[in-house]
């Protein structure tokens, strides 16, 4: 017989319970930590001067792109200082990968940048292939590039909608989902999943091109350019949008390089650095495409550059479809992979920049250590440089223009 203990109100105190009277302070929350400041910077940041106040932007905020918390120190509408607080989405992916075998590690890295999952698979897969020293069949490489560029367009299309939404435009996000949804559907036909594809395998890809994917792709490609152009016309010719984005969050080339920025954010400052050309991998050396750059380095340049990249991705897809060779899609590999002890580094050009994996093998079937370099994390560091001095409304625009994905930042 178990005895029922009486319900202890104090132990289950909830603010919803009308029997509990709350203290006045419970309704307030200041972001000042309860412990004494640990560093000089912390002491300086948490001291308020006259007319300043803290605003907790996030982790639950309509437009922080995930669960980023930014403690803003504001003076009226102006941001004086800020302190991004990370880690709300930390899942310990790198540690999880060490306890999984090489095949399983791929699906752990998949949801890092959930907007463009194929690139999160591509980089560890390439690192493992380097560890194993295996040659990927050419058809598999072509399929990888084809699917990857499609995913890049989907990611950039979503960026366009997000950026506009953070600037207050309701419609572009739904217009950009025309492309995103169509691409995601055709990738679902190819890989079996809409978001977390888990499609790339060590030594190749999971499945060959099928009829549904090809027919969807053909239908979409025939109208893609005009559709994307018409979607962009809504924003590119909008006076309010251009005035808000131009000259905002300017970052110069030297600072961008010092901050290790890569990808579109770096190319918007005028540096034509693209991993696909700088450190060629896969079949990119054989393909004909340009690396668009812009020199302004502001939010508008970052936005326009991504729109230019969509056009280059369409070119690449066109070439892949024309030159797709026949052949196997998987290299011949044993089911249980035990690479020789060693270390390998593989970097790819994701939609947000250089996405890299550094894997160490100790001869077992599990990676000894996996380090994932995520561009979103690097780019998020620059908000400390870009935001102070701007207005509250611009914090969201700057953040959106850097296009971070918190899944990749917190890992």
């Amino acid at each position, binding site marked *: 017989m178990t005895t029922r203990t009486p319900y202890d109100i104090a132990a289950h105190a909830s603010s919803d319970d009308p029997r509990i009277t709350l203290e006045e302070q419970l309704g307030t929350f200041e972001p000042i930590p309860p412990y004494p400041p640990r560093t000089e910077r912390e002491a300086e940041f948490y001291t308020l001067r006259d007319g300043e106040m803290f605003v907790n932007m996030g982790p639950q905020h309509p437009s922080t792109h995930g669960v980023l918390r930014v403690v803003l120190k504001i003076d009226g509408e102006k941001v004086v200082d800020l302190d991004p607080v990370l880690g709300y989405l930390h899942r310990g992916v790198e540690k999880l990968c060490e306890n999984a075998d090489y095949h399983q590690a791929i699906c752990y890295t998949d949801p890092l940048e959930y907007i463009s999952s194929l690139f999160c698979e591509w980089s560890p897969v390439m690192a493992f292939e380097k560890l194993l020293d295996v040659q990927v069949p050419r058809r598999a490489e072509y399929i990888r590039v084809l699917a990857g560029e499609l995913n890049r367009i989907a990611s950039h299309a979503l960026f366009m909608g997000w950026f506009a939404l953070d600037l207050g435009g309701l419609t572009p996000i739904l217009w950009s989902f025309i492309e995103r949804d169509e691409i995601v559907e055709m990738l679902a036909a190819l890989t079996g999943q809409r978001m977390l594809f888990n499609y790339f395998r060590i030594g190749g890809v999971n499945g060959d091109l099928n009829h549904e994917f090809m027919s969807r792709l053909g239908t979409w490609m025939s109208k893609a350019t005009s559709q994307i152009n018409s979607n962009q016309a809504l924003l590119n010719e909008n006076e309010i949008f251009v005035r808000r984005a131009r000259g905002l969050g300017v970052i110069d080339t030297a600072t961008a390089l010092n901050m290790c920025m890569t990808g579109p954010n770096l190319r918007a400052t005028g540096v034509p650095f693209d991993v696909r050309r700088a450190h060629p991998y896969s079949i990119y050396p054989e393909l004909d495409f340009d690396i668009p750059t812009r020199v302004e380095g502001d939010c508008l340049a970052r936005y326009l550059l991504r729109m230019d990249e969509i056009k280059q991705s369409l070119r690449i897809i066109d070439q892949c479809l024309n030159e797709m060779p026949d052949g196997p899609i998987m290299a011949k590999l044993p089911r249980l992979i035990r690479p020789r002890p060693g270390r390998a580094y593989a970097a790819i050009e994701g939609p947000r920049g250089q996405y890299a994996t550094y894997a160490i093998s100790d001869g077992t079937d599990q990676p000894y250590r996996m380090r994932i370099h995520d561009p979103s994390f690097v780019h998020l560091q620059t908000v400390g440089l870009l935001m102070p001095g701007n207005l509250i*409304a611009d914090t969201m625009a700057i953040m959106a223009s850097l296009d971070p994905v918190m899944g990749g930042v917190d890992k």
Partner: protein
Amino acid sequence: MTVVGRTWERLTIPGKILAVVIPLGAVLTAGLALLIALIGGAVVQFLVDNLPLVRFVVAATIVLLMTVPSAFLIIYMEMKVIALMNLRYGPDRVGPFGSALSVVHGLKVLMKEDFTPTSADVPVFTLAPVVVYMSSVMSLLVLPFAPGIFGQDFNIGLLYFFAMGGLTVVGLLMAGWSSFNKYSLLGGLRSAAQVVSYEIPLTLSVVGVVLLAGTLSINKIVLGQAGSVLDWYVLRQPLAFAIFFIAVTAEANRTPFDLTEADSEIVAGFATEYSGMRFGFFFFAEYVNVFIASGLTVALFMGGWNAPFNWPWPVTVGLDPGGLGIGLLFLLALGPPVVIIVLGLPFYLLNSQVKFWQALIIGFVLFNLLAVAAVLGLAFLSFDWVVGLLWFMGKTYVFVFTFVWMRGTLPRVRIDQLMGFAWKWLLPASLLNLFVTAGAILVVNK
């Protein structure tokens, strides 16, 4: 148990209710009759003597009641139109084409928990939505809907209108301050800065119209635009119209000037901590403000309830039912059944599936539709306010659509751009318009 008690026990529940209600009703009726007999004459005399007051109370009540359906209509319109612009379906479940969804939203808002944050300033927090809503409703009072259909024709109507519109910001500031939330505070202060800045070009742009019309009464301004589309002030004051429309958008806190409730920046602005019907009041007030802004634009620049052209062939209906004498009775008695049968018979004869009673029902429905159409048509021809109301509502909803359209397409401006636009562009432009208008009037009058 007494006799009364036993009788009471035997009664059913409706019986018990009636046993209480009937004596009570009898006593009350007698009292009322007595009251009417004693002071009824005095009351009637008082009402007759103070007819403007009675008229004001009735008009205020009607206007207050009218805001809710018009807000519902605009909310539904916004949901549907923006959905179409976004390539979505929008509401399509409740009612035909989802038209009852905003009503359901209203009910939902009524039934939700009315939450007050622990640290909020309770009296101010409670009062703020009321202030916002009342200021919207009260500015609706001077808006002329049709000839003779207006709450009050003040000779300082326009001034009263802007005063009431300026009162909204007090409510928003109250909401922002009392919520004890920094987002709310930012929203409230933004609205204060915005509304105060845009009040000036808004008021100055209208001065040109006031000079032309020679009056501040909105009703008389509308009367001054009688005639055709060429007499509307939008053609004589195009710059003022543009300034006014931009400023009134900012006053109503609509996109692209909806900084006070910018959801991607400050969550929901002043309304962040509000829930339930208090939020509902804010929500209603916003859409009533849209209606008011459109209505005022129409009244000042688009000719109000005047038709855009003069109907060259005047139609008069010389119906005199009394002239029929006893025939009228026959007409009323025999007309409907005959018309119903005449209308329903074709359905019965042409379709073997339709039974006779079904054909009768169809005929009845058709007859009613015809009767309603006839009555409305008669009203349309006989009363000029019906035509005026239709024209006014039609024009107003064109502008409401424009507001919705802007919300669907435009991003939001930044606060410094917003203020700079008001002080650097709109204010000089409205002053220029004022001087040009005044000069032109001087020259013409010489």
